[in-house]
Every structure is written in structure tokens, then in C-alpha cells.
């Protein structure tokens, strides 16, 4: 099997798993308990919090563990809206956010909030001039992702942070795809709140963090016990948290090395595909892109068929095609960068990890060439195109 869907989720590495293991059968104490048996679990949680914070230049007490990226996004946006409802009810976001952000914003719209969805350019970079113009006296939150999960475009977070700060507006970023993959510094970038998720970083699924800048007084989202300084209730997921911390620590040590390795492999993959498969478009920015993301549209073919045939060759990948979406609409991100429906249809996302090899990439491109040619030979659109050419 060749796994090229690391933006969907990643493998828990042995190095991380070894550190998690003791917290199931042996160190199973509730970390919040008073007896000494709980001490080891609590200090492991503290250690993890420190690692999670250090990766983004934050303080330990600014990190709150959650059940993942979706929860953190929901919390940040709903709680910020609630906190400032007397100041204003206007939120600014982008058209290419993850559904965890978009659907939360849509929910708030139903509650009487107003949301401006700022457009992106053809590479998926947010239009800063539009964002600046969208700011109003009643704007209470700007939420823009650090990097896009489909096309991999990295957003100008520093510039957005500066704009937010200048205008006294809270800035949240969904960094689920960026955290541990590209450098982030919450102070340099003026980030007030940040969401990240363990399973995109070789930690387990179902654990994430919310960074909340000291002094930002948003309320809690999950009500209950006094965990996480009464801001996020629920018995601590010790094993998950330890895994998150371990992965964050490794990511900090190896950020540059990993990125370099992935970028080399990514650019090799992109070059081969663009050189060898005609009528192909690279989506997203060529340079401002996540180290592990390659995203293409192959004209005249459909993504689900492509995925099934790749799967039959042992290759795991994903697509933003309408047919794979369940809703029959192509991905909102591909439409936002201006792609026509039938082009968005033939989309393919390949997301690497440092464990992928050049041999795997070569095999994938070789198979991809065959599959695209085969699907084109069955495509009425390709038939029309060829007839028009002659």
C-alpha cells in the first residue's frame, strides 16, 4: 500500500506510540485526582502541554486540550461571538475554510450574526485588500485558516494578524494543517486563538488543542468539571494528550528537516505529473504551499473513478470531485479558486509524509498516467475535444 492521504490523517509513529502506551493499562489514573498514583499522569499532561505550546511560541497556560480540530474551531468562533455580542455581530472569514469553520459561521448567521466570506485569488490566497475593506466597527472576529486542507495554500497569517491587531479585532486561525508542518509563532503573527489537531501530526485521532492568548476571555464551550482551568470540561484524555505532546515535540525538532524532505519529494511528484500528463492543472500556489501537498485537476475525467482505480493499485488518495462529496457539489475550495465544475470534477489530492519514498512516487505517477489515459479514452468530453482538435 502507498499512503498518500496524510492531509486526511496520519499514522501514529512507533516513537509516539511507545510514549502513549503506559497511559492505558498502567498509568490509568484520572490526572486530576489527589492521590500520588495520579501524579505521573498529571505530570505527563503538563509535559505535553509544554511541548504543544513551545511549537508555536506560546506559554503552557495558553494551551487547552480538546477533542480535535472541529471542537477547537467551534469553540473559538462561537465563544468569541458570544463574548463580544454587545460590541458587534460581524465576523470575517474566507471562502475556503474547512467545514468546521464554515458551518459554524453559517450556524451563527442563523443566530443573527453577519459573516463576510472574503474571496481568494486563483491560487487560493486570501485577498488582503478585500479583507481590509470588510472590517467594520462591529467586526468582532477574523478567522482565517493558516493553510488550506485541499489545495495546500499557505495564507498570509502575519499580515492578517497585523490587520486584526491594528483594528482591535480578535484573530483566530485554523492551523490544523499547518501546525507542526510550517513555522508558526503566535506572538510574531499576532494570533489570539489557534486550533490544531493531533491526528494530522502522527498523534492519535480525537485530541487537539486550542491556543488562547492570555487575556482573551472567551467562555468555555464544553461545560462541566474544572479541568483545563474550568475552560474545557471532561476527564483528560491522558493517552491522547501525551501522544499530542510527543508528536509536537518531534515536530518542533524536525520541522525544517521534514519540510525540506517533503518539499523535495513533492516538487519531484509535481514536476513528473505536469511534464508527463497532458491537460493537467496544478491547483494552489506553487511556492506558498504546504510541504506535503500536491493537488491536480486532470481535464476530461472524474475524480471518483480515478480514486477507485488508484485504490486498486494500492494507492490511497482523495478528490474534491462532486461524485465523492455525497452532496453532488464539487469542493467549495475548487469553486472558490474559479474552477469550472467539470474541471473541479477531475481533481486529485496527494499528500505526503516523510515516510514516502521516491520509488512510491514513481510507481504512483506511472499508474496515474495509465489511469488518466484509460479514463480519458472512455470520456465523451475527451472525445469531443479530440474531434475539435482535428
Amino acid at each position, binding site marked *: 500500500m502507498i499512503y498518500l492521504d496524510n492531509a486526511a490523517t496520519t499514522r501514529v509513529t512507533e516513537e509516539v506510540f511507545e510514549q502513549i502506551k503506559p497511559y492505558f493499562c498502567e498509568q490509568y489514573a484520572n490526572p486530576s485526582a489527589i492521590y500520588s498514583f495520579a501524579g505521573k499522569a498529571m505530570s505527563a499532561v503538563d509535559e505535553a502541554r509544554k511541548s504543544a505550546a513551545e511549537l508555536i511560541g506560546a506559554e503552557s497556560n495558553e494551551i487547552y486540550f480538546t477533542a480535535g480540530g472541529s471542537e477547537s474551531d467551534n469553540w473559538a468562533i462561537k465563544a468569541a461571538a458570544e463574548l463580544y455580542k454587545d460590541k458587534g455581530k460581524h465576523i470575517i472569514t474566507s471562502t475556503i475554510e474547512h467545514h468546521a469553520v464554515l458551518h459554524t459561521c453559517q450556524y451563527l448567521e442563523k443566530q443573527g450574526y453577519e459573516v463576510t466570506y472574503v474571496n481568494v485569488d486563483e491560487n487560493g490566497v486570501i485577498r488582503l485588500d478585500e479583507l481590509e475593506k470588510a472590517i467594520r466597527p462591529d467586526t468582532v472576529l477574523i478567522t482565517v485558516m493558516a493553510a488550506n486542507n485541499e489545495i495546500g495554500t499557505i495564507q498570509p497569517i502575519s499580515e492578517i494578524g497585523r490587520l486584526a491587531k491594528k483594528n482591535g479585532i480578535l484573530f483566530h486561525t485554523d492551523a490544523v494543517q499547518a501546525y507542526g508542518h510550517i513555522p508558526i509563532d503566535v506572538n510574531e503573527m499576532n494570533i489570539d486563538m489557534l486550533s490544531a489537531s493531533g491526528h494530522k501530526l502522527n498523534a492519535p485521532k480525537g485530541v487537539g488543542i486550542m491556543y488562547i492568548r492570555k487575556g482573551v476571555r472567551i467562555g468555555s464551550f464544553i461545560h462541566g468539571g474544572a479541568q483545563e482551568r474550568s475552560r474545557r470540561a471532561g476527564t483528560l484524555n491522558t493517552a491522547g494528550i501525551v501522544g499530542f505532546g510527543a508528536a509536537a515535540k518531534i515536530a518542533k525538532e524536525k520541522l525544517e528537516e521534514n519540510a525540506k524532505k517533503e518539499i523535495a519529494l513533492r516538487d519531484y511528484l509535481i514536476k513528473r505529473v505536469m511534464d508527463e500528463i497532458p491537460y493537467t492543472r496544478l491547483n494552489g500556489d506553487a511556492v506558498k504551499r504546504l510541504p506535503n501537498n500536491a493537488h491536480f485537476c486532470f481535464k*476530461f*475525467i*472524474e475524480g*471518483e*473513478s480515478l480514486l*477507485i482505480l488508484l485504490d*486498486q493499485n494500492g494507492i490511497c488518495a482523495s478528490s474534491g*470531485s*462532486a*461524485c*465523492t462529496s*455525497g452532496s*453532488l*457539489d*464539487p469542493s467549495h475550495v475548487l469553486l472558490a479558486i474559479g474552477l469550472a*465544475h*467539470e474541471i*473541479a*470534477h477531475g481533481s486529485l489530492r496527494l499528500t505526503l509524509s516523510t515516510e514516502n519514498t521516491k520509488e512510491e512516487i514513481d510507481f504512483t505517477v506511472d499508474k496515474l498516467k495509465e489511469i488518466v489515459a484509460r479514463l480519458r*479514452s*472512455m*470520456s*465523451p*468530453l*475527451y*472525445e469531443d475535444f479530440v474531434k475539435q482538435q482535428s
Partner: protein
Amino acid sequence: MYSEKVMDHFNNPRNVGEIENPSGVGTVGNAKCGDIMRMYLDIDENGIIKEAKFKTFGCGAAVATSSMATELVKGKTIQEALQVTNKAVMEALDGLPPVKVHCSLLAEEAIHAALWDYAEKNNIKIEGLQKPVNDIEEKIEEEY
């Protein structure tokens, strides 16, 4: 998610291709998901479908239903071919997931479009055949 039969017809689609100078050819699409199916028919002087070929731009279910539809109409009379509904195609494929039912409508409509083209070319009227829609979304909205 797909039945074995669907996967079989997806992997080894029967009758992919074009027919030169076909008796009838029809192209239908689904503007919503963007898929397009083209059906070619070769009909002899006795009104028997000698050959059927297709090309499809669409999901696994769309390819499999096109393939099955061509198999089901081959050797049939025009009237028999009209009985090849999307339900018949789905049954022959051991069913489709609910979100993929519309893909089978594309196959039914492509047969109708090809027969309509044949009727127009030959100036005949086929009993029970209605003018096909270009976009099956109209039809889905009526029926579901």
C-alpha cells in the same frame, strides 16, 4: 460501498467506445454533479439493436450503469429497449448506494436519447418514447 457486480462493470466495462455512423446517438448530462454519458446504437432494418457503445464522464456507478445498460439493450427490439429502466439497470447490478441512484437515471436517459435520435433520423415515431431531457436533474426533481 459498491457491489461486486458494480465493481466488475467498472473495472471491465463492456462496450466502451464509439460506433461510426450510428443509427442513433444520444448525450445526456447531470448538471448538478456534472456527469455526462453518451450512448451509440446500431439498429438493423428489423428494428433490432445490433450494437451499443458508450462513453461516460462520471463516477464508478455512472460507468457501471452505462456498461450494464449497453449489455441489457443489445439484441433487443426498440420496444424491449424502452423497458430497460434505471431500476432494471440497478437490479442487474445488485443495487447502488442511495446517493448513486441518480447515476443510473443517466443510463436510462442516454438510451432514450439515442433512440430519439434514431427516430428523428428515420422520420418515425417510437411508441411510448418521450423527448429526452438534456439534463436529468429536471427528471430527478419530478420523480423524487
